[in-house]
């Protein structure tokens, strides 16, 4: 039986850690499908497969997935609710004989969290030094930066901020986010 255990699952490394809820909501999407492609050949394969590649640090929609360009040859497909599209893509990627890049194992190496709610902007201003206000950081941008001192990929999705980061830091980051924002559930947004 194939079985996966992510950090917050029973038996996982961050089992039982509660996530902030309320005006600030932290959701765990780690189990959602995604795939990272990295190294020479990655972009060529994607282009050959019909993807219109965004610039580095931008993202684009592709076949119901979000295609993130993290570097010249470093790409990430986020397939929340588009697992089948990802499976199809992976099938043809695996079958491709020529240069096609290599798996970056992002579905294993990274946790995927989403921070949302009315206090999301104030919370992000505490967690991250980059200017993430919507006028400066619209939805098609990616910030590779730090969240609470942890390296992370941040984007502003329609449903909140998506944060991808080292999966072994899951418990640590939950703790840091909770400590930095614990007051936001009771207070109005400022300044």
């Amino acid at each position: 039986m194939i079985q996966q255990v992510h950090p917050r699952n029973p038996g996982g490394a961050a089992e039982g850690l509660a996530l902030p809820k309320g005006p600030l909501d932290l959701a765990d999407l780690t189990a959602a499908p995604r795939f990272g492609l990295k190294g020479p050949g990655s972009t060529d394969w994607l282009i050959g497969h019909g993807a219109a590649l965004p610039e580095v640090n931008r993202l684009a929609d592709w076949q119901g997935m979000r295609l993130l360009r993290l570097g010249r040859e470093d790409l990430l497909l986020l397939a929340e609710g588009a697992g089948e599209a990802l499976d199809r893509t992976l099938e043809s990627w695996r079958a491709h004989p020529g240069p096609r890049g290599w798996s970056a194992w992002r579905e294993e190496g990274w946790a995927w969290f989403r921070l949302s709610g009315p206090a999301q902007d104030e919370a992000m201003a505490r967690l991250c030094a980059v200017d993430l206000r919507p006028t400066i950081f619209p939805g098609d941008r990616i910030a590779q930066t730090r969240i609470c001192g942890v390296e992370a990929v941040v984007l502003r999705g329609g449903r909140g901020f998506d944060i991808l980061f080292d999966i072994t830091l899951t418990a640590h980051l939950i703790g840091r986010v909770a400590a930095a924002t614990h007051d936001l559930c009771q207070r109005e947004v400022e300044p």
Partner: protein
Amino acid sequence: MSRLPEPWGTRIDRTRPLRFRFEGREVMGFAGDSIASALAADGQWMLSRSFKYHRPRGILSMAGAEANTLVQLPGQPNMLAERVALCEGLEVRAQNVSGSLARDRGAVLDLLGRFLPVGFYYRSFMGPGKDAFLRVWEPMIRRRAGLGTIEPAATGGEFIAAHLHCDLLVVGGGLAGLSAAVTAAEAGADVILCDENTMPGGAATWQREGAAALPGLLARVEAAPGLRLMRKTTCNGWFEDNWLPLIRDGRLWRTRARQVIFATGAIGQPPVFRNNDLPGILLGSAAQRLMAHYAVRPGRRAVVLATEPEGYRVALDLAEAGVELAALADPRPGGSGGQMAAVLRRRGVEVIRATVEEARGRRHLKAVRVGGRWIDCDLLAVSAGEVPAWQLPCQAGARLGHDEATGRFRLSLPEGPLGLAGAVNGRGGAEAARADGARAALEALARLGGPAPAPEPAPETAPGAFALPVAAHPKGRDFVDLDEDLQVKDLIHTVQEGYGELELLKRFSTLGMGPSQGRHSAAAAARILAQATGRTVGEVGVTTARPPVGPEPLGLLAAGDAPVERRTALHGRHLALGARMQPAGAWWRPFQYGDVADEVAAVRQAAGMLDVSTLGKLELRGPEAGAFLDRLYTMAHANQPIGRVRYCLMLNEMGTVIDDGVAFRMAEDRYYVTATTGAVARVYADMLFWNAQWRMKVDVANLTSAFAAINVTGPRARAILQAAGSSFDLSTAAFPHLHGREGEVAGVPVRAMRIGFTGEVSVELHCPASRAVPLWEALTEAGKAEGLLPYGLEASRILRLEKGHIIIGQDTDALTTPDELGMGWAISRRKPFFVGKRALEMRQRLGLSRRLVGLRFPEGGKLPGESCLILRKGTPVGHVTSIAQSPTLGRAVALGYVHPEDAVEGTQVTAKCRNGTLVAAQVMNHVSFDPDGRRQEM
């Protein structure tokens, strides 16, 4: 004491009285009061005792950070009484007092002042005997040291840090700052205006002048889009690239501003005369603030010292508040208050053309001497000129110059995203400040690149000469720096001793070193020093302005910090098994689950499994991956057959061993390489760095977190894997030592390698992190019948030491070469290049100075500990790097460095135990257990 009637007291809410205690006595105040204003309203002017002489001190500026006003709150030493808002039940105590504030036994020091000249501690306290200072004098000095008291149990409250970004930050919400902020915001800029007061408006909130302009500006602030007004917020420093900490209570905003305008006003400079430090002597602005903001009458009978027109306004305000005006002293030749002087005279106030020469009083001002005449008063309000608030601009690179003609200090900014507005720019006065704010905003807009309207012409201001009265008194107590109790003669003597450079003077005399950092001593000190050294005030200058501008609690600065903590995918399993966890770098690792000897025995006799997920795991892929590894590591990897695992050893460019691991060639163009737990971050970064220079066709992926790893080891290891079910042949012939396979174990995809640290048959299974728990469970299940035990770090260390495997960082240091480790076999001689090769060759020519060997100690005898010295003819030549009791062998096993001539098996060397006992040890092979290595190859 009753308060002045409304409209005096704009900041207090008379409907909300508050009760608090000062020195154990109950005092009433109002919401909106500061501690200082409430105490002043109560007639309690003395707030503290001074640092050195324990003189009574109180309010000077109502704005500053002077030691005068520092009080002790519960768990919070050195709090500024003028700034801390009053709250119900607050316990306030005076600081630096022996006995009580009123009857401070330390006050005797004031009488002994003659015996404590400036720098006195350099002249005495030296004997008798060489440690007399430590034994006798320093404890005495330390008993007198310090101001406030820490409370060991204090938690410091809650601190939160965040970030802000803006086009323009305006610091200071006086008329200039308000005007700058609204001008820029109305032009479309994204503006933050921070002001440290509860209400913006600056001097217009306590002076008549400009008060009329304030409501209009505040309405524009309200209406301006994109203008964020942050009240009660202090900008406490300027750092590179306009990075500014804004602080309010327990909040820190690290603020990035594309442009900054400093509208920080000016700092009143007190004149110098004998007993100028008595409570009751206030800056004129302080008297005005007390009246306007807090409805506190600052005295009953006042003398005003005015060398600026503001002084006359202060006098009029005092009169209006019902304070009897005894006299106004204006020593300026030809100086006058114009219309205002006439008004005062009409009210019967005498205007004396002289300065205040002396004051007297014990705990409060009783009288001042003006032009030789003593005048009774309980208030002296001084308006003797200002210096631009230079701290922030100077931190940002501004220079504080001095106009010798007018005697005024003037700031000049460097080119850059910075501006000055208002009094800090020499544009005092309401209308001038407002216009200067608008000008500064337009200039900032232009620098931001937006359309900027032309500035309106600013009114010319021609400030009069600045003549700060400095009246040195032969008997002293004419204080220049109140924080540090420095008198005029102290500065003169300091110069006479040779410390005439301002920074030397500061260090010898401690001028400006106190809590207010020279705010109120700058002008007087510069003048005194200029006169004493024959230089101009401009040449003397002010001391370097260092951040922070005002005091800031350490907790606020520490708000953003916590050590990083990593957990392997199996963390939950270890906890469930009751493991004792130990930090290893950022990781948590199981130290032991049960009895360490049992764990060792299980590995030697049956099987054990160890979570090795913290190992670095790097995948190198691309046509030049092998060639790349050949350049990075000492062994040959390009010719490594597919499916084989090879040891890899990494040197730095100095030829020092920095890491080791294994490389599994998975395909022609793909290697899976491990690195040690502590080194992988650096190894990975170095790989990327080297390849940024070499530009080889290789991609490096750091899979450390993506993969978990379990090492199954022991005579029964193979049986356990077979029981768990594997997709590949596990037999020795099909899968020998130092081979790797991809396949499945217990249905989990794995990269399996025949490697280990224990010397037993070992299979290291690397699997995707999300599959680690199922794999662990399956192995546990399969191992039940075979005696499998999970083991921890401690057992692992013993097992590796029995086998003489080194741990880099423990058995090596910053200079260890492979030859010192006896690892010459790991150096490929044929490769033209690898990192460290050239240095290694040069170091080889120097010869060895030590060798790492195995050490065997006589059984039953005293054993040295780790790091104990190895001596040769009494001289240290090395040390024991690792030692442990081997349950397998029933004796100690150890590694250590010895002199190279002694590195021959059987040689006797001497180790020095921690208690000094010398013990003999025999040099032996590194490997104590199964020296031929047969067990691991089975």
